[in-house]
């Protein structure tokens, strides 16, 4: 299966009596790089979890092209890549073993070659056979990103992808995200690194207390706009 549009309609997600998401609606088209902004605990990771089919919505719907999330199946997961704040890699395995394991798990052809190319992209080929336990946060982050993109997903969901990256790695990630967008992927990036994300996003949405609103990117830096928007919402 494939899709070129993600539509979220009136999505709510409750954990007991607490509402993590409240009637969230969002549409992302192929070739769009969308920023998901908001303070800690706003519901960004929950939204990414639901979009990744790891959590079911309490009410509302998520539609991937023509496929509803309620009928989430193996083929739909093949089209989704999720990088969460926890990096979902095995610290006891080497970088190469991690990538080859996931490549085989995804049923990808040429897992060895794919993993090697991913290691080169992550600039980790010199440390490919070292266990991940000894990697810095930035190195782990680069590895986890490649693990996320190993199967070339149509929908790319990234939670704080710039965490721990040095300046050159951040710039490389920005380029990578642009390439993904230009390649027609749907990219949703939750980030607090507003300076790094400035000028990168096609559009942005702001999540606060589980509610999602469109975020105006025009005028001033992203950080200034963000502060002003949050201040106006607090008033």
């Amino acid at each position, binding site marked *: 299966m494939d899709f070129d549009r993600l539509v979220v309609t009136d999505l709510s997600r409750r954990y007991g009596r607490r509402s993590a998401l409240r009637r969230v609606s969002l549409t992302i088209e192929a070739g769009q790089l969308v920023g998901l902004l908001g303070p800690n605990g706003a519901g960004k990771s929950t939204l990414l979890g639901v979009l990744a089919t*790891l959590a*079911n919505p309490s009410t509302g719907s998520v539609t991937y092209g023509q496929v509803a999330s309620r009928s989430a199946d193996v*083929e739909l997961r093949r089209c989704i890549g*999720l990088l969460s704040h926890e*990096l*979902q890699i095995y610290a*006891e395995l080497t970088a190469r073993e991690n990538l080859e394991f996931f490549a085989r*798990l995804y*049923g990808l052809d040429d897992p060895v070659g794919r993993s090697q190319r991913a290691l080169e992209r992550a600039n980790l080929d010199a440390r490919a056979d070292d266990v991940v336990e000894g990697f810095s946060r930035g190195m782990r982050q680069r590895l986890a990103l490649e693990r996320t993109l190993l199967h070339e997903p149509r929908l790319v969901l990234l939670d704080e992808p710039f965490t721990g990256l040095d300046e050159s790695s951040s710039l490389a990630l920005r380029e990578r995200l642009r390439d993904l967008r230009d390649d027609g992927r749907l990219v949703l990036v939750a980030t607090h690194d507003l300076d790094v994300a400035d000028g990168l996003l096609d559009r942005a949405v702001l999540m606060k207390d589980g509610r999602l609103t469109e975020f105006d990117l025009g005028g001033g830096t992203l950080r200034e706009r963000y502060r002003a928007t949050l201040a106006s919402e607090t008033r």
Partner: protein
Amino acid sequence: MTRFFQVAWLVMRKDLRVESRSWEMVSTTLFFAASTVLVFAFAFVRAGRAVDGAAPGILWIALAFSGTLALGRAFERERHQDALRGLLMAPVERSAIYCGKLMGIVLLMGAAELLVVLAVALTFQAPLLRHPFYLTALLATGTVGFAAVGTLFAAMLLRTQSRGVLLPIILYPVTFPVLIAGVGGTVALVQADPNLELVRFWVALLCFFDAVFLVLSLWTFEPVMTE
């Protein structure tokens, strides 16, 4: 179906590879199993003679306790860095992931059983190895039943704070029939005149429990893992 077993094999091989780096689960499980038998030996062996009929119970208690210890650690690697989500995001039947984890646990418990059987046979002078085929059948079916439920519960409790306490509390009541059948079969096997017909009955009952527990676990793993 081939893909299902391929995924299960991949997950098990990954677990074994990780374990071969640390020997964390193997060493703690084997050490705990050996310690349990040793403690019972001090209580039940007097002047070089073991109390009659104690060996089967001690064998299965040692296996249940060490198995619980192994199950408690089974998903620790998946909890660390939330690697479980990475597995669950893969385009594979999630029950295949469960199967892979189960196979790893069964292998680990099998290693513990080798040690425990030898230790119990030696310290309690129990004729456990008189009918190795029947003993293997009892242990294999008992282990699969115990581990099938335990693997599911360990996965369910992965995100709870007090999983170390909760696992035995919910595991033992459910696996009680497996332990009873295991002890019953072993008692029939080690008595002076082994009742092989009764052993076959207990093995058949264990096979039934295995089938029920495996089907239920495979069926519930997917919804249990979806938040």
